[in-house]
């Protein structure tokens, strides 16, 4: 039974991200800033940390593909960036200590890397022609603040959930 919690949670977050941008007013603090929820990938980071790296990469791949098909209609960007950032995250965690504060900090850094990578790719295929400084002002920094709040709220519950998940994997 515990096995179904992980895909269910990730699916819920996948739908919740789009609900979040629909329901939270865009001019919450000041107009013109874009807050992008990255709750799904943060949960995948925590899954690679406390669950298993293999599962993290597989879920990154599946949800990257879904994200591309449903939300961007350009297949490839998130399909590539989700597993890659999860892989980089697990690489970081192999050399750092596994304190929950360190995990949260590294997740924020990996979200920033993901955002920058996606920006670079969109720049490359001419979806956008924005320069990096206005990108960081309009999108990168507000996004990091929003996701930092999410991590502070949910780091401990996510840790508990994925630890239980990895226990159930080991028992099988």
């Amino acid at each position, binding site marked *: 039974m515990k096995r179904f919690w992980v895909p269910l949670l990730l699916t819920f977050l996948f739908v919740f991200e*789009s609900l979040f941008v*629909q329901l939270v*007013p865009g001019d919450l603090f000041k107009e013109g800033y874009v807050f992008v*929820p990255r709750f799904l990938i943060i949960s995948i980071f925590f899954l690679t940390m406390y669950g298993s790296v293999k599962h993290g990469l597989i879920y990154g791949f599946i949800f990257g593909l879904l994200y591309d098909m449903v939300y*961007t*209609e350009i297949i490839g960007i998130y399909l*590539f960036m989700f597993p890659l950032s999860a892989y980089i995250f697990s690489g970081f965690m192999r050399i750092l200590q596994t304190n929950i504060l360190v995990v949260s900090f590294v997740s924020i850094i990996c979200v920033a890397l993901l955002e920058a990578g996606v920006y670079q*790719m969109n720049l490359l*295929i001419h979806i956008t022609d924005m320069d990096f400084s206005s990108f960081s002002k309009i*999108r990168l920094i507000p996004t990091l603040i929003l996701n930092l709040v999410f991590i502070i709220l949910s780091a401990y519950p996510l840790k508990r959930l994925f630890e239980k998940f990895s226990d159930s994997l080991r028992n099988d």
Partner: protein
Amino acid sequence: MPQFFLNKRLIILLVSIIILVALIGFSLRDRDQLTLPEQFIKDTTGWVQSMVSRPAHYFAGFFENLKDLQNTYDENKELKKHLDDMARLEAKVYSLEKENTELKEILDKKDSLRDYDPLQATVIARSPDRLWHEMIIINKGKSHGVQKNMAVMTSRGLIGKVKSTTPFTSTVQLLSALDPTNRISAALQGDKKLYGTIEGYDKENEWLLLKGLPVDAKIKKDQNVVTSGMGGVFPGDVPIGKVLKVVPDEFGLNQTAYIKPSADFYNIEHVMVLKRGMEIPKEIENDEVEEEEDL
């Protein structure tokens, strides 16, 4: 170099980059319709999303109503003021409409580019990847008669066009998208109609850019901008916004007008997909495009 090929990680990376480039190239093509697996996945997720989004909207709507109650008094005053004007306008519109139909009957002209048939739809999702992909997903699709490139508006004005359709949902690209291929033929209402294209969005000021206006045209502030109805399946005279200011473009051959959009691109819940009433045969459509260029 046998050692190079034995490095598993490197090979996985290289292969995935090749697949990545191929997939992006495939999806960036000017596609008429999505592939079947994509349509299937979009329909399935659309079903899940509409199940989740409806109760969520009720819940959010409840709090919004509470907030609205606070400034009801001021709003009521303002609205009463408008109401007096409304009655006068309504009478005028009625007589004008009647005169228009009578005149059309005399000319034996049955349909015009302006006729459209609105199809109500509800927003079920929005792309979280904002700024790069300003898209919403609505709950009407091919089976309800939605086609690619149809105009989509809220009660206040044009918000975008249909980017792709699946049997039960369709994706709308908003005018605020930064995608340079997102263009719409527009006209400035005035003594003499001026044509240009809406291309580009100024993210920091939230202005639309109307490009390609003649350099000698006199354009005033607060002139209305509407769709021109030329090309494709767009109906004419759908409001887009009002002119804020006009600047000469970089080469001095044309003018660019900054437009304040009349619709809100953020809080969108109910939209209308506009089916144009008038069908145009292919050859005539081409002639019309040429005519537009002559102007």
